[in-house]
C-alpha cells in the first residue's frame, strides 16, 4: 500500500512534505519496473534541486534512469546508506529507502494525489 500522505510525479518519484521539509524517494512501481538495481547517485547535502529536473540517477542491470525532483529547494539530508543497501528500495520504498530531505521553496504543479497516481500506473501497465 502506498502511504496516503504522499504525493507523486508521473515519473514515479514520491514526496511527503512536513513543516516545509520534503522527503523524496521513488515508488514501488518504479522499483518493480527497473529490475535488479546496481548503482545509485544522489546529490550531497547543501546541493540545490529544482522541481521537474533531474536530481540523481539509478542504474539497474539493464538501464540508467534519471530521477526527477518533485520540489525545488536545498538538500538538507541525503540517505548516504542507501547506495550500499539498494535492496531497501524493494523492501521499504516509502520508508528506509528515502533518498533526500529538501527544504522546500517551490513544489511541482504536476504532483498527483495517490488515486491519480494509481490510475497513472495502471495506464502505463
Amino acid at each position: 500500500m502506498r502511504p496516503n500522505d504522499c504525493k507523486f510525479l508521473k515519473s514515479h518519484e514520491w514526496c511527503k512534505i512536513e513543516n516545509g521539509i520534503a522527503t523524496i524517494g521513488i515508488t514501488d512501481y518504479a522499483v518493480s519496473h527497473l529490475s535488479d538495481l546496481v548503482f545509485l547517485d544522489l546529490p550531497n547535502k547543501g546541493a540545490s534541486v529544482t522541481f521537474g529536473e533531474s536530481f540523481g540517477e539509478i542504474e539497474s542491470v539493464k538501464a540508467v534512469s534519471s530521477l526527477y525532483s518533485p520540489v525545488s529547494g536545498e538538500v538538507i539530508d541525503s540517505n548516504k546508506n542507501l547506495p550500499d543497501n539498494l535492496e531497501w528500495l524493494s523492501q521499504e520504498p516509502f520508508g528506509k529507502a528515502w533518498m533526500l530531505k529538501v527544504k522546500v521553496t517551490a513544489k511541482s504543479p504536476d504532483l498527483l494525489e495517490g488515486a491519480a497516481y494509481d490510475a497513472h500506473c495502471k495506464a502505463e501497465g
Partner: protein
Amino acid sequence: MAFDAALLELAATPTLRLYGWQPHAVSLGWFQHAADFADLPAGTQVVRRLTGGGAIHHGDELTFSLAIDAAALPTDVAASYRLLHDAIVSALHAVGVPCRRLDAGEHCGARPAQRWCFAEPGRDDIVTERGKLLGSAQRRIRTPRARVLHHGSLVLERPPLTPFVAAVADHLPTDPALRAALRENLVQRLADALCLPWHADRPTTAELARAEELAPGYREPANIARR
C-alpha cells in the same frame, strides 16, 4: 556517444542508428570508474557511454542505437529487452548465426560483478555456445519527454582486449555480403517488432549541432575520469 545523446534528446521520430568504430575504442558504462581501467594498453582510446553496464572494447562490430519514445516500448525494462533481443535473434538466425536469448529461469548473473560487459552473460542476453554475442544497455529519461536510448554492440570479430566474447566470425566469414545482410535484417526485424515502417534518412542539422555541443562530455579525459 554524443550523437546518440543528441538523438535521445531531439529525434522527432523513432531513430535507429547503425555505426562502427574508428579508431577502435573502449567505452565505459555511465557509472564505471575510469581508475578501474588504468591497466589498459597505452594509447587505448576511451570514451564515456551514456548508457549503463560494463565496459566494451569496440573493435570490428556492428553497433546500433535506438532512440525512441518510452511509450513505444514496454514500461518494464526487462520486457523491453525481450522484445528487442528477440528481434535481433531473429535477424541473426536469418543470416545463419546460431544464438539464443538467455531465459529468465536459467542460471545467469542478475548483478554483474565483472568490469567488462561481455564477461558475464546475464538474463535476456544474446549468447552463442561460446559466450555473449551482443552487449546492450539503456538510458531512460522523463523530460522533456519520456524517452529511451537502447544501445547494442554486436561482435563481428573478437576484439583483443576481450578475448572471451562470442563473435559472428565464429560461425561465418564476415565478408561485405554478410555485413550488408546483417544490417538489413537487423533494421527490418527491429522495425517489425516495433510495428513501425522504416526509411533511410540523414541526421538533422539540429541533431548534428547538439552532438557537437555534447561531445566534450564523452571524449575529454577529464570528463571521462569524473567518476
